[in-house]
């Protein structure tokens, strides 16, 4: 057996190292290490409760809005306030913009360049794909960055800037969209739709959203111009619809009032989510050991010299079990036909995870167009939300890469405890005290690795769209 350390595992958000035990060219065991500790839960303790809104976005540069939304939700629960309809719509639009832009960033900048590696030269799709996706020089980069930057202009209108806005408040949004701005925002959505339809999908959003099975998607992609159909041809040639299976248990907190919350398992199907069953285990993290704790009672105490530890990431578990989160989880829990068919065939896979992001682009953008139409200029966007001196709040939201939760308690107006479970904390969790590996650690087992192996590990790791800076908040 040989041990391989893969790092810096780049083109992910933040720092990642993957350690592989390889036997006869196959991965026998994997350990995922988050080698950076950021300590935000300690930064927050003792600060004024409202200050969380300025601090938590800075946990993460790629899902800062999701962090804001989680904090705003937790504080809204504390204040007992529900934002007015315009405030809810504005928040949904801001969150959806970040999430869809992140899907685009992931596909074009983080995930696809691996298919342009020389290891694939000679494959029937290689020349076309390498011309499009070679890192920083492929022809896809410019138009994608343009589309992404223009799409973020929505946040310029709705939240001042991205990342790190203070627009999301417990009582709604600080920015009341004017009638004139509402017209501009709709135009920006049309512009982004044109890019997704013309360049990414090669079809209308509605037509792709109607594709409901693996077989139908294969037929749909055949000969179709568009970057996602191009990926599908490469992925099918490489069998990526069968690779990268983790636990096949999926968690979603629900998003935008469009996708419900729930837990999905292959035998039982959909179950109601009970956030009270979430715990975090620190057995293999460089953190003080103890029984797994629910986040509302969680602790983050550094123990950098701990034996058997290999990461700064805790191991969150739902009812003691390993679960996966992300776009695929959201779509499974929502009962989306294509996502369900893909998982029914080969479980969670590289192709299923990437396809789920495309499903979200195709289904959330039309919803965003409706939300903008539903905004009533002149009606309020924000209500006062005075906080109590003491109490507890929970904010559960969906970031692009999955379920994000904030658990906080305040005493005399100051933060007493602040615990965060980020999406990649779930997906890239280490082993727990029962030695059960986390989702990625399971997904890598059996894959080819070592000298001369194809870059399969690269695809599987990045198919989760990891965000390590969140993981190690």
């Amino acid at each position: 057996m040989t041990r391989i350390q893969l790092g810096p595992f780049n083109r992910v958000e933040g720092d990642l190292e993957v350690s592989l035990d390889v036997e006869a060219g196959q991965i026998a065991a994997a350990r995922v290490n988050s080698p950076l500790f950021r300590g935000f839960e300690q930064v927050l303790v003792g600060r004024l409760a409202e200050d969380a809104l300025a601090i938590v976005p800075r946990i993460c540069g790629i899902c800062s809005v999701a962090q804001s939304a989680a904090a705003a939700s937790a504080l809204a629960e504390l204040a007992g306030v529900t934002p007015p309809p315009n405030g809810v719509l504005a928040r949904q639009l801001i969150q959806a913009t970040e999430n869809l832009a992140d899907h685009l960033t992931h596909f074009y900048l983080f995930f696809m360049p691996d298919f342009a590696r020389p290891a694939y030269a000679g494959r029937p799709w290689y020349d076309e794909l390498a011309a499009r996706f070679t890192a920083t020089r492929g022809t896809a980069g410019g138009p994608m960055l343009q589309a992404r930057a223009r799409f973020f202009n929505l946040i310029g209108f709705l939240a001042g800037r991205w990342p790190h806005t203070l627009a999301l408040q417990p009582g709604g949004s600080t920015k009341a969209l004017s009638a004139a701005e509402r017209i501009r925002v709709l135009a920006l959505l049309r512009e982004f739709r044109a890019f997704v339809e013309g360049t990414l999908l090669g079809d209308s959003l509605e037509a792709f959203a109607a594709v409901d099975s693996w077989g139908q998607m294969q037929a749909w992609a055949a000969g179709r111009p568009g970057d996602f159909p191009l990926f599908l041809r490469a992925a099918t040639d490489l069998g990526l619809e069968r690779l990268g299976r983790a636990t096949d248990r999926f968690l979603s907190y629900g998003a935008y009032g469009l996708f419900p919350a729930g837990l999905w398992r292959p035998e039982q199907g959909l179950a109601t989510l009970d956030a009270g069953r979430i715990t975090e285990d620190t057995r293999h993290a460089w953190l003080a050991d103890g029984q797994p704790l629910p986040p509302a009672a969680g602790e983050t105490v550094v123990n950098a010299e701990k034996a058997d530890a290999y990461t700064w990431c805790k191991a969150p578990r739902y009812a003691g079990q390993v679960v996966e989160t992300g776009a695929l989880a959201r779509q499974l829990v929502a009962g989306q036909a294509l996502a369900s068919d893909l998982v029914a065939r080969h479980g969670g896979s590289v192709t299923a995870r990437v396809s789920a992001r495309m499903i979200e682009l195709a289904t959330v953008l039309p919803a965003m167009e409706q939300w903008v139409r539903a905004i009533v200029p002149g009606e309020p966007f924000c209500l006062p939300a005075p906080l109590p001196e003491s109490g507890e709040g929970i904010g559960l939201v969906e970031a692009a890469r999955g379920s994000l939760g904030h658990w906080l308690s305040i005493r005399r107006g100051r933060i007493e405890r602040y615990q965060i479970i980020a999406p990649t904390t779930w997906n890239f969790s280490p082993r727990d005290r029962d030695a059960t590996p986390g989702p990625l650690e399971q997904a890598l087992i059996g894959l080819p690795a070592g000298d001369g192996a194809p870059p399969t590990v690269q695809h599987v790791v990045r198919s989760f769209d990891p965000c390590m800076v969140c993981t190690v908040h």
Partner: protein
Amino acid sequence: MLKVLWLQSGGCGGCTQSLLCAEPRPLFDELRDAGIDFLWHPALSVESGDEALGILEACADGRQAFDVLCIEGAMLRGPNGSGKFHLMAGDGRPLTDWVARLAARARWVFAIGSCTAYGGLSATTPGNPLEACGLQYDGDTPGGLLGAAFRSAGGLPVVNIAGCPTHPGWIVDTLEKLALDGLSAADLDEVGRPLLYADQLVHHGCARNEYYEFKASAEKHSDLGCLMENLGCKGTQAHADCNLRPWNGNGSCLKGGFACIACTEPGFESPGHAFQETPKLAGIPIGLPTDMPKAWFVALAALSKSATPKRVRDNAVADHPVVRPAVRKQGK
């Protein structure tokens, strides 16, 4: 080509994400045509693992020439000076060691973002257990990882492109200025920030200026009035051109309806008061414009408040204009 080597450490990656929002031209086209190329960037380059470490090692031992070292994120020296809070993946050596070695080879060193420049949020936990600092500053005190005396091969201290996050234009323009005619000490302000954006105040060009002039203040979130008197805005003290150089097309913090928290300034993360509340003494904001005598400000404020038009007074406390500017008939 100006070769840029980029590393990330104790930060959120938001400055890279912001950089990718560069407009109007796509970032890759913009930089390439200005003669600027990424030698390696953790979020953008194809090289991973050993290939990436090979590039970094060649840069650190002088075999691979490069021009600009961009570091994004605070330097984490803890625990107990070990640097273990951030070890280079695949390598196991502290990032702080890598940064020190690479900085010794770089012609210029850029600190991307306020964490990298001054320490930022990572350095604010009581007692600073992360032992976090900036590249050449601890807050506003020179020092940091590289020390106050550090000068890169190009003869400059660390260039602090501060901001949380940085505006894409601040990075792009600083790189392009360097590529065009170099950078000198005269291009930087007292805390190392490029004057091309730090010679302005956030206040300049603020769309709420009429409310400021009349001291017509917002009282609650989403109000249109000036955010300085009640809601914590530091736009009159913060160095940056955020309201002249729009964010994400047409935005700024003020246009988004929330206060400037002075994220380009050393120590912004610990203001000593609630971020979204203005501290006052005897009803007068403590943080007045830095270069204006307080007595004058108070006198002018009293005068302008007494002269505030009804339109400005009423609109200041609404989330949309409730009184329009009067339309005069021709000849009147």
